[in-house]
């Protein structure tokens, strides 16, 4: 059983037929994904409001589907409207930000201002890339101890990035490491478990950008205990998001 906390709905800029909810439901069946949380590729790449609307329709199509409200701190006023629009919708279980696309650093004044609008215990998934990205996400997390920050890609696919991610999570208690990526070095999960334990590591796939196979293989091939694998694949996310 798997809970996937990092997924996308919508089309991408590469050849793929896995776009609509039916195809994604089949993918969930295939890989045993019980709950899955999406942000919209349209919101990230082009139009926040239209993309969040897309997410809200998409997640109605399968009871396993949940959404992140995508926020763009480069446009705080529009982002606040999105928080108001979807913040009380129980199918939305957190917010997502992508500093590389928005151009706003994770600890910018705009981002800090937006975080002040979020309710206590809100889950915040941030694309986190490189040692500097990790430092900034941890800085943001330190400002908001009542929010829970998920470092997407656990700091990136370069050794320096994911090593920084592990260290950042070790020193910042309200952060979690999410594990997906294209190039997955074989030590990253075992090292993370050794340094911070398995309790704050979350499974994510980045589907429909990347097949869940790669992240699942990363956990099953990591050499960690079966209990740790279960925590990463579903237990931690079930507790964090309150999935039954």
């Amino acid at each position, binding site marked *: 059983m798997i809970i996937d906390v990092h997924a996308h709905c919508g089309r*991408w800029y*590469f*050849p*793929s*037929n*896995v776009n609509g909810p039916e*195809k994604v439901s089949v*993918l969930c069946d*295939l*890989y045993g994904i019980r709950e899955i949380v999406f942000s919209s590729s349209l919101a990230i790449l082009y139009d926040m409001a239209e993309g969040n609307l897309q997410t809200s329709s998409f997640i109605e199509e399968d009871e396993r589907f949940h959404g992140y409200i995508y926020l763009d701190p480069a446009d705080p006023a529009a982002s606040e409207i999105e928080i108001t629009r979807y913040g009380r919708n129980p199918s939305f279980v957190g917010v997502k930000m992508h500093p590389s696309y928005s151009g706003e650093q994770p600890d910018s004044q705009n981002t800090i201002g937006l975080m002040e609008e979020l309710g206590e215990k809100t889950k915040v998934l941030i694309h986190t890339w490189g040692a500097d990205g990790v430092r900034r996400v941890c800085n943001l997390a330190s400002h908001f101890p009542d929010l829970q920050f998920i470092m997407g890609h656990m700091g990136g696919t370069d050794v320096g990035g994911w090593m920084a991610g592990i260290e950042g999570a070790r020193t910042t208690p309200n952060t979690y490491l999410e594990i997906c990526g*294209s*190039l*997955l*070095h*074989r030590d990253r999960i075992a090292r993370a478990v050794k340094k911070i334990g398995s309790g704050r590591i979350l499974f994510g796939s980045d*589907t*429909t*950008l*990347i*097949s*869940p*196979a*790669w*992240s*699942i*293989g*990363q956990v*099953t*091939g*990591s050499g960690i205990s079966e209990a740790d694998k279960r925590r990463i694949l579903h237990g931690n996310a079930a507790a964090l998001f309150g999935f039954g």
Partner: protein
Amino acid sequence: MALGVENCVSISLRGVFYDSLSGNEETLGASDEIPFILPAATLDPRKFYGRLEPGVELERFSVLRVFPDAQGWPFDFAPFYRVLEAASRSGLPVMAPAMGHGSTTVLLRATSKYGIPVIVTSVNYSTLSEVLALLPDHEDMKVCIDMLNTPDGIELVCDEFGPEKLVFGSNFPTTYFQGPLLAVQKAQISGGARRKILGENAKKLVGIK
């Protein structure tokens, strides 16, 4: 071998990062000791310009693997053409990574000139369209699935061009073996196609009966 691997094409990292001559010797030594290892040779075009050093016998290898990504050279590079000539004389397929956009186009232009079979590794969502555009015009081109990570990338290549175009690779032990294996196991393709990807295509390429 554990993980169900019958044979693997493998290479010494010494040859990648330090010196191809001593690295190739190390690879052959490992292959002599561990018979399921099919030795891959490498030549570094930052050093090689057409004359093989004494002791290099490419015919003893299964594949010629190059590392422009790790060594920082482009495919449009005169010494690399000498590498391809050496591969052509030895009858070895060349294995090379997809790098930025356009690099695989340049690679295939070069290998076509020498009539060399080529295996393109490290293809991911970003470089997939380039590979799909090249496949129809290059009979001798294979795609390694080591990073073919879109949700239906394997199905897409199989449906459009046939499973004969894919070979299994994992990049193990640098990255996890189980991810690409699971992707093939779960792909919505026939059992015959799966067998081709997991072994039969590679066996033909490197001449295993």
